[in-house]
């Protein structure tokens, strides 16, 4: 038996806002969350990209020490959005610990801030420093730190899925959570991703010449998805969480329904681990549509991965055109906040839900002059007041991983 899977609560910490009203205001008014890179004592002087999608809203974390002790910054973000989702959902505490609620949550690589501290101690060649590296350092820095800090704080006993596939971490979490509920393995899943402020990620992409460097003095003007002047991605931070429930379970408990996940696909390019691949992305979209039981013309909005790299945007535009022609409106939400890495799939899904609820399509920020090679699709270049009935959320990652989620407005 297959269950319908609905989204009943959502929360995001993003460079363009924390709570829903703030995020919607930024989307409607074209506010960027990209800021100057903060100086640090490690890499900021060396990287050429001096911009970062920065969470600026102060967040008061109110976690007891027994929870804080195993949390790096990334887990703070993760637990905060989950806390907000659980507060909004009003789930019975007995259900939360029943084993029927699971967690699908990940990050790119645990807490890089904590990892940096560990390596400083290892390379200090000091026995006393070495011996101070302990269990908590591992628990803060391991790749599944977000998922298990969530299970601990909220006493969740269901299955744990902790994808760590860079830029598809968040979208895989939602997709795998969707499958767990769809096939009756769990009644509900908390799904999402998080990543903290981290200059090592900037350095990696910078060395690959993938980062934006031409707008260091005007951070809000980059990244520029699909634009002629785009010059690369901007690394960002944030977290997003959605609660997925089976439709029957949600209806039985009278939960408000924000949207329905109707399909998901994930594949791999089966080759190069870095270069975007038009055929791989095209297949993901086509197979996702089939999984959702949709014809291409039924999709009216695409949240594109659109990191604003030279080649990535062209390849994605080609894949979208291959499947949809120029029918759906396409927005690259990273124009507002940069690439929030492991959280981008979750954050972009949540922003899409907000647009669905409020009946508008946000334009791709900084897209003023469409690159001719990306011009074959229907770009959202101004705010459009129109209902989104079915949206596709696309994300792709290093390693050749592609995902596509399909979200339906609940009517």
């Amino acid at each position, binding site marked *: 038996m297959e269950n319908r899977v609905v989204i009943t609560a959502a929360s995001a910490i993003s460079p363009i806002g924390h709570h829903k009203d703030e995020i919607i205001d930024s989307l409607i008014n074209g506010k960027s969350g990209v800021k100057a890179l903060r100086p640090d004592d490690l890499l900021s002087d060396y990287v050429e990209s001096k911009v970062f999608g920065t969470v600026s809203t102060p967040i008061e974390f109110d976690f*007891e*020490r027994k929870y804080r002790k*195993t949390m790096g910054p990334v887990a703070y973000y993760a637990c905060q959005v989950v806390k907000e989702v659980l507060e909004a959902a009003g789930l019975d505490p007995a259900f939360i610990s029943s084993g029927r609620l699971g967690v699908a949550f990940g990050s790119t690589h645990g807490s890089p801030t904590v990892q940096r501290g560990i390596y400083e101690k290892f390379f200090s060649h000091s026995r*006393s420093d070495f011996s*101070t590296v*302990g*269990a*908590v350092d591992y628990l803060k820095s391991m790749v599944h730190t977000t998922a298990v800090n969530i299970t601990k704080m909220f006493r969740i006993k269901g299955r744990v899925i902790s994808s760590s596939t860079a830029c598809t971490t968040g979208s895989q979490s939602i997709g795998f959570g969707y499958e767990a509920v769809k096939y009756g393995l769990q009644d509900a899943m908390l799904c999402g991703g998080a990543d903290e402020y981290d200059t090592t990620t900037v350095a990696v992409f910078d060395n690959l010449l993938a980062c934006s460097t031409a707008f260091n003095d005007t951070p809000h003007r980059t990244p520029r998805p699909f634009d002629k002047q785009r010059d690369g991605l901007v690394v960002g931070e944030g977290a997003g969480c959605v609660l997925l429930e089976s439709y029957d379970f949600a209806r039985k408990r009278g939960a408000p329904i924000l949207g329905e996940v109707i399909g998901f696909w994930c594949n791999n390019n089966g080759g190069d681990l870095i270069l975007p691949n038009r055929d791989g992305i095209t297949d993901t979209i086509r197979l996702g549509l089939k999984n959702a039981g949709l014809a291409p013309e039924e999709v009216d909005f695409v949240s594109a991965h659109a990191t604003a790299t030279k080649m990535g945007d062209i390849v994605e535009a080609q894949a979208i055109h291959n499947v949809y022609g120029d029918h759906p409106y396409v927005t690259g939400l990273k124009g507002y906040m940069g690439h929030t890495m492991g959280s981008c799939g979750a954050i972009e899904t949540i922003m899409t839900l907000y647009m669905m609820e409020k009946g508008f399509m946000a334009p791709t920020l900084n897209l003023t002059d469409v690159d001719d090679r990306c011009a074959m699709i229907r770009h959202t270049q101004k705010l459009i007041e129109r209902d989104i009935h079915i949206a596709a959320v696309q994300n792709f990652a290093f390693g050749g991983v592609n995902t596509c989620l399909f979200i339906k407005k609940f009517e």
Partner: protein
Amino acid sequence: MTRDEILTRILSVFEQEFEIKNPGLDENLTEAYEFDSIDALELLGEIEKMLGSELSREEKKESMEIRTINQICDYVERLARSRGL
């Protein structure tokens, strides 16, 4: 190092590091305050600071059955005595 001095230091560590105020001296710390294996390892680090010397692997293993503040004080008292403190 007197028993009273040890108790004062341990209670201070519990308040400052573990946010546990005025625990009962014979309370099971795990049951009463969710004091866990991670906290125990951190406590050993604090005890090393108190004693001004590292604990051997054998000395650390001896701590694994400790459950209460009084047992912690007994343990630190033994370690201090063996170091001539």
